[in-house]
């Protein structure tokens, strides 16, 4: 193995590492992916802890996956199979609900039950958010400049100038909404539109996913916008289920990468990056084996990529300092359930299309705020927020016939508890989640065959993300665009020649988008003077 020589080594076989590898291989490079675990995927994995019951263990839905990645890597041919979620159910206390479904007239009537004004405002809101998403979606396909590394900035100047021109030309009120979204809280954004508590809470759930903020925290509006940038077939804010779970998606990208010539090596833990005469020349594995290559890309978080892997003397002090202070403490947990029967909601006791949609437990903003209060002081939420999917209702292959699996994404479960240890608290937190679910799905508890509770330290241990943050680092202005992960490393390059970053801790951040992996690979190819024919997303304008 070590006798082979590689053009590029990609550290980490998560979705971004695999996307990078596939793009590099597509351009004719000899690529070696090194994955620490016995399977590819990182946080995009499906496992079968009980026969017939399959969990999409960590990440569970796909929305942000870039169309150009799907197209360039021919992912459909390799098994991409995205079943869209058509509805969102928010159960409310007392057997009430807010149900947003595929048919817009029905959604209108359902929202109107809570407020006729809001039903009309919701139509306008979706239009405005679509315009906003159109305005910013190009950001997902544009490399940020490096504010210090001038060379990188110059290369991207043209693309950025075009982007800036479009922002200047966009309607004023849209730019105003955009600036608000970058800075304000989700609540203050939503207050401008809506009066009814259930709708505001339902929409605000996107503003806290994976983030240590509440809908009342400044900056939460950006997290909401980040989730709006996802699309399925041109429909923003649409979510899809990959057949076989997100592990299925990792397999799809891995197949694409292999078919393009990349080699993926499992059970290969990288210990450090090999640097000779100031230039990267490969990596060293835990067992001392050297894997040599002209360039190395790391898809890991900065603490590892810029910290553990490198001799500290190789980096400017401020970059090293930034890497070690990178905000990646997670606050999201995952409860995976195997169920004996299909769950029944108090508000909707009969099985129906709602079970194949998303469901979330967030009756009003106070509820979410209280959940956050617990976490602010180092506790876990006594009454957690939960975002639910029943994968077996979207994909019969996920559970034996008649049985089901339920994926519960829950907050808040801060990485570090004050005065307590997750080892003692994990199951109690799981109980709190089930208690809340039981209120809305009477009988759920009795139907549970098996339960898996995962909290940030588990994500850190299993996936390797320091702090267990699902986005490899908080999505806040101080950690976005030119700040992701920081000056001298924001344009996928690092100060060490030949060493690149390609994971979710680079622009445009977390979620199964493949965008960081793609942009990093394109940067490498340009630096190697290996132009690649790739798709570029078309500048759409605001539509206004």
């Amino acid at each position, binding site marked *: 193995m070590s006798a082979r020589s590689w053009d590029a080594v990609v550290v980490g076989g998560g979705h971004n590492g695999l996307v990078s590898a596939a793009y590099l291989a597509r351009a004719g490079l000899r690529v070696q992916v090194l994955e620490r675990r016995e399977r590819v995927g990182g946080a995009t994995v499906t496992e079968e802890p009980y026969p017939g019951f399959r969990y999409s263990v960590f990440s569970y839905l796909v929305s942000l996956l870039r169309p150009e990645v799907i197209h360039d890597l021919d992912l459909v041919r390799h098994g991409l199979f995205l079943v869209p979620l*058509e509805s969102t159910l928010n159960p409310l206390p007392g057997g009430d609900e807010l149900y947003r479904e595929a048919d817009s007239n029905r959604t209108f009537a359902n929202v109107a039950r809570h407020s006729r004004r809001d039903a009309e405002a919701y139509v306008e809101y979706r239009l405005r958010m679509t315009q906003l998403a*159109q305005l910013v979606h190009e950001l997902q396909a544009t490399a940020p400049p490096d504010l210090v590394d001038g060379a990188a900035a110059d290369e991207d100047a043209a693309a950025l100038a075009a982007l800036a021109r479009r922002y200047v030309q966009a309607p004023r009120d849209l730019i105003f909404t955009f600036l608000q979204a970058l800075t304000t809280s989700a609540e203050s954004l939503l207050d401008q539109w809506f009066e009814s508590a259930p709708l505001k809470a339902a929409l605000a759930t996107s503003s806290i996913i994976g983030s240590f903020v509440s809908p009342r925290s400044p900056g939460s509006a950006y997290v909401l916008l980040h989730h709006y940038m996802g699309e399925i077939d041109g429909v923003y804010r649409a979510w899809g289920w990959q057949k076989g779970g997100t592990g299925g998606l990792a397999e799809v990208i891995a197949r694409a990468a292999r078919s393009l010539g990349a080699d993926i090596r499992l059970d290969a833990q990288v210990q450090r990056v090999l640097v000779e005469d100031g230039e990267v020349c490969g990596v060293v594995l835990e067992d001392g084996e050297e894997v040599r290559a002209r360039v190395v890309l790391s898809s890991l978080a900065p603490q590892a990529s810029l910290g553990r892997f490198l001799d500290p003397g190789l980096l400017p002090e401020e970059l090293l300092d930034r890497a070690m202070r990178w905000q990646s403490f997670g606050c999201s947990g995952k409860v995976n359930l195997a169920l004996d029967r299909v769950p029944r909601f108090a508000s909707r006791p009969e099985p129906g299309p709602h079970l194949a949609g998303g469901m979330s437990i967030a009756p009003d903003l106070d509820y979410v705020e209280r959940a956050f209060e617990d976490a602010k002081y180092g506790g876990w939420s006594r009454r957690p927020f939960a975002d639910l999917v029943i994968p077996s209702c979207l994909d019969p292959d996920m559970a*034996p016939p*008649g049985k089901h699996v339920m994926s519960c994404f829950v907050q808040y479960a801060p990485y570090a508890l004050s005065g307590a240890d997750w080892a003692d608290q994990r199951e109690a937190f799981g109980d709190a989640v089930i208690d809340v679910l039981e209120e809305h799905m009477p009988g759920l508890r009795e139907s549970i065959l098996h339960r898996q509770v995962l909290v940030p330290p588990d994500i850190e241990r299993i996936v390797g993300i320091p702090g267990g943050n699902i986005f490899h680092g908080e999505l806040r202005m101080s950690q976005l665009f030119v700040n992701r992960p920081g000056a001298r490393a924001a344009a996928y390059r690092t100060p060490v020649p030949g060493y690149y970053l390609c994971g979710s801790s680079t622009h445009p951040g977390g979620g199964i988008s493949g965008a960081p992996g793609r942009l990093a690979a394109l940067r490498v190819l340009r630096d190697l003077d290996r132009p690649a024919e790739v798709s570029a997303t078309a500048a759409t304008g605001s539509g*206004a």
Partner: protein
Amino acid sequence: MSTPPPHGTQAIQRAFALLRAVADSARPLPLAELSRRVGLRPPTAHRILGALVAEGLLDRVERVERDGAGMGYCVGRRARALGALAPLAGQQKPPRTTPFFARELEHHASFGWRDWSGVAGATSYEPTYHREYWAIRNAAAIIDVSPLFKYEIRGPQAEALANRIFTRDFRKCRPGQVMYTCWLDDDGKLLQDGNVVRLAPDRFRATAAHPTLRWFQDCGHGIDAEVAEVTEDYAALSVQGPRSRAVLVAAARDRAHAERLAALPYFRAAEADIAGCPVLVTRTGFTGDLGYEVWIAPADAETVWDALFHHGEAHGAMPVGLVAMDQARVEAGLALIDIDFVSAAHALLEGRKSAPHEMGLAWTVKPSPDRDFVGRAALERAVAEGFRTRLVGIEVSWMELERVHAPYGLRPQNPHHPPSREPGALYAPYGAEDGRQVGQVTSQAFSPLLKKQVGLASVDARFAEPGTALELEMMVDYKRVRASARVAHLPFYDPPHKRDDVTIDEVQGARA
């Protein structure tokens, strides 16, 4: 009122008064308000309303009011569906329906019905068809295909007659086998296509989209066989999707029937028993997926429907309408009569008639010296001359869709568009033929599975090679634009499970 109402009709009149009051109101009305409008005491009104709700003529729903509280009555699902059918019937007579109609109404939550050969067919059961499409591709779809015309060819020389009518060689069709075939007029032009199952050495059953009893009978001159129309003798459900086999196996009466269905090969037929009803199951369909068609005596229709849904629930089975099936058949590259080609019996213009070779059906016409089917001589002359058009697949990539929408400030919004049967012009690129029109797309759909626009097209044979670059005219923001398209192999989607062979243990043990 000129004549007094006959005795005993008071309750019915009151029921109608309540129905009218509900129908006249834009929003659900509460009991108190209804009683007042109709002039009944609330307990009386309540009793009658209960009966109407039980019959599905009214629904009891939560009212959409600012004060929020309370229940009200609105027009029920069954009454709405009946109303939706009125245009089909010209409001003169009740529309013809299939034997599954009552069951379909129970699932029907949209406004959509389509006239299929004069019979009401659901376009989609849910308000949008998307989940029904995914049921075909990802779980199990149950589609009512009863309106197909059905004919039996029976008698000592049934085989000879089949071989005279159809282009395929039915001497090679063993009992229990199904053959897809087409049939031609005397000029070698395509009349129709359909599946023919050989039930016994002297008995065949064919399906057709258009009535064709007279043609079949006229072809039989001098042959000792009879042709009978059996359209009304069989209701039919098409069970399609990767879990369709698991659904049928679960619904089979006993292990022997289950084994037979599990092992049924592609394009074969088997008799089976579902919930005590004898049915014929053929491994056929119109979706390009794993699938079966179940042929049922009309009296057993509801029993079989109930059994399939009862056993299908665990496999994600859903009732699926005609829009989702249309989407699937475009992906499967299956040309549809009246849409992608015109039957020679219906074409006003000679140029609108097609030879099988022009519809991708050359494979169904294998010449053999000792056999003579209707249209053979003319077809052979045409083959010698060559054909000027071909049926091809056309695809437009997602990135190209983005590109043509962008100048208008739009992103493609494809999932909102159902499959289209509107023709679209295909042009040669500039530089070839000066960009003139070289064909037309006749069916197209954005495939949410394949992430591209796909279509069936008839093009000039010189542009029919897969990979050929063409331009497809599309409308974006009411402007005609030309998108770069490519000629593609058909079918677009061809999963291996469509024709695989498995055992019952694999069906029951594995995840399908």
